C-alpha cells in the first residue's frame, strides 16, 4: 500500500513537471516525455501492475490538461509501455547494457508511435516526414534523458 501511494505521489510530481516545465526542454518544438521515462522506471523497478494503471491514469490526466482532441491515447500508450517494461521487472540487471538500451528504445518507439502517428494521421505531413522529423528525434531525445536518469538511479546496474 505504501508503495502504491509513494509511486502515485511521484507520478503526480512528474506529471506536474511535464505539464508546467516540459516546454523548457523543448528543442525545435520537440518536447521529451518525462512521463514515459517514469512509467518505464516503475515497470522495471516496482511492479508491472503499478506501471499499467499509473500509466493509464497519468496518461488520462495529461490528455485532459493538454486539451487534445484524442483524449485517451496517452493513457493507452503509457499502459502498453508499463506492461512491456514490467515484463523485465527484476530481470533487467541480467541483460547486457546494449540490449537494455535497445529495449528502452523499443518502449519509447511504442509510446511515440501510438501518440505521434495516430494524432498526426490526418495532418498534411507525409508519413515519412512524421517518422523522420518528429517520431525518431523525439524518441532519441527522450532516450538521451532516460539514459542520464537511469545512470544516476542505477537502473539496470547490478
Amino acid at each position: 500500500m505504501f508503495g502504491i501511494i509513494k509511486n502515485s505521489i511521484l507520478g503526480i510530481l512528474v506529471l506536474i513537471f511535464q505539464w508546467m516545465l516540459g516546454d523548457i526542454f523543448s528543442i525545435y518544438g520537440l518536447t521529451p516525455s518525462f512521463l514515459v521515462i517514469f512509467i518505464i522506471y516503475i515497470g522495471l523497478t516496482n511492479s508491472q501492475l503499478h506501471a499499467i494503471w499509473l500509466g493509464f491514469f497519468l496518461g488520462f490526466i495529461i490528455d485532459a490538461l493538454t486539451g487534445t482532441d484524442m483524449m485517451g491515447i496517452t493513457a493507452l500508450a503509457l499502459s502498453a509501455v508499463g506492461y512491456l517494461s514490467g515484463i523485465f521487472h527484476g530481470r533487467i540487471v541480467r541483460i547486457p547494457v546494449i540490449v537494455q538500451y535497445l529495449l528502452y528504445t523499443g518502449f519509447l518507439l511504442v509510446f511515440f508511435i501510438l501518440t505521434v502517428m495516430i494524432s498526426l494521421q490526418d495532418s498534411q505531413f507525409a508519413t515519412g516526414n512524421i517518422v523522420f522529423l518528429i517520431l525518431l528525434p523525439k524518441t532519441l531525445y527522450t532516450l538521451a534523458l532516460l539514459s542520464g536518469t537511469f545512470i544516476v538511479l542505477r537502473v539496470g546496474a547490478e
Partner: protein
Amino acid sequence: MASKAPSISRYKSLVNLVAAIALSLLIIASNGNPAMDRTRGFVLEASAYLYVPIQWVETIFTIEKDYRELQQRHIKAQIELNKTRTLVKENQRLRSMLGFKGDKNFNVIPANVLSDVGSHTMNSLTVDQGSDDGVTLLSGVVDAEAQLVGKVVAISPHTALVQLVSDKNFRVSVREMRSRDVGILSYSLKTGYVIQDVPKNAEVIAGDSVVTSGFSDIFPEHIFVGWVSAISPVVEDYVKSVRVDLATDFNRVEEVFILK
C-alpha cells in the same frame, strides 16, 4: 503450486493490460461526449489548485516590473484613446446618416495564463477564469494588445482551456485589409499560418495587415491577426494562398482577455 504462480501472475498482468486498453479505447470513442467534457473540466479545475499558489509566488518577483510596464501602456493607450474617440464619433455620425445598424458591443474578462502547452498535436493554454466568472464556451480570446490568441474550448467553474491560433484544428475567418477579401486562416506545421481560397485577382502584397472579418459569432471584426508575409503561386484557376506572420507572440503571453 509454486510452478503455477508465475503464469498466474503473467495472466493477471495481461488481464489488467486488456482492461486498461479497453478503458482507453472507450475514452477515445467518447471524445466530444458531454460527460467527457465535464471530466476534462473537473481535471482542469483540480489542476488550478496546484498551479495558482505557484503562480502567486512567481508574481511576487515580477509585480513591480509588470506595474511599470502597465503604467507605460496605460499612458500610450490613453493618448490613442483620445484620438480614437474623435474618429468614433465621426464614424457613428456617418454610419447613422447611411442607415447602418450599430456594432456589437463586447465586454472583456481579464485572465491570467496558468500554463501553456505546445506540441505538434495541440496548442492550448489554461487561464484562471471560468464559468463562475462569466466565461462561456467558444468565447474569443485576445492578448493585451487586442491581438488574436484563440478561443475557449473547455471550461470549469474557475478555469478555462483556450485553443490557440497555432493549433492545427483552429480556423478563423479573416480579412486582408488592402483588398478587403475574406478567407479562412489556419495553421499547419508544414505551411505555417495560411489564408486559403483568396481570389486569384485579390491585390495582396507582403506587409498588408490581416484582421478578423467579423463573420463569426466568436470574434468581432477588426481584431488584429498579423501581416501578410508571402503569396503562394496560383495552383488552381481562381484562388491562391496567402502566408501570414502572426502578431501574437505566444511565448510572451502572460495575461489574456476573454470576449464576453
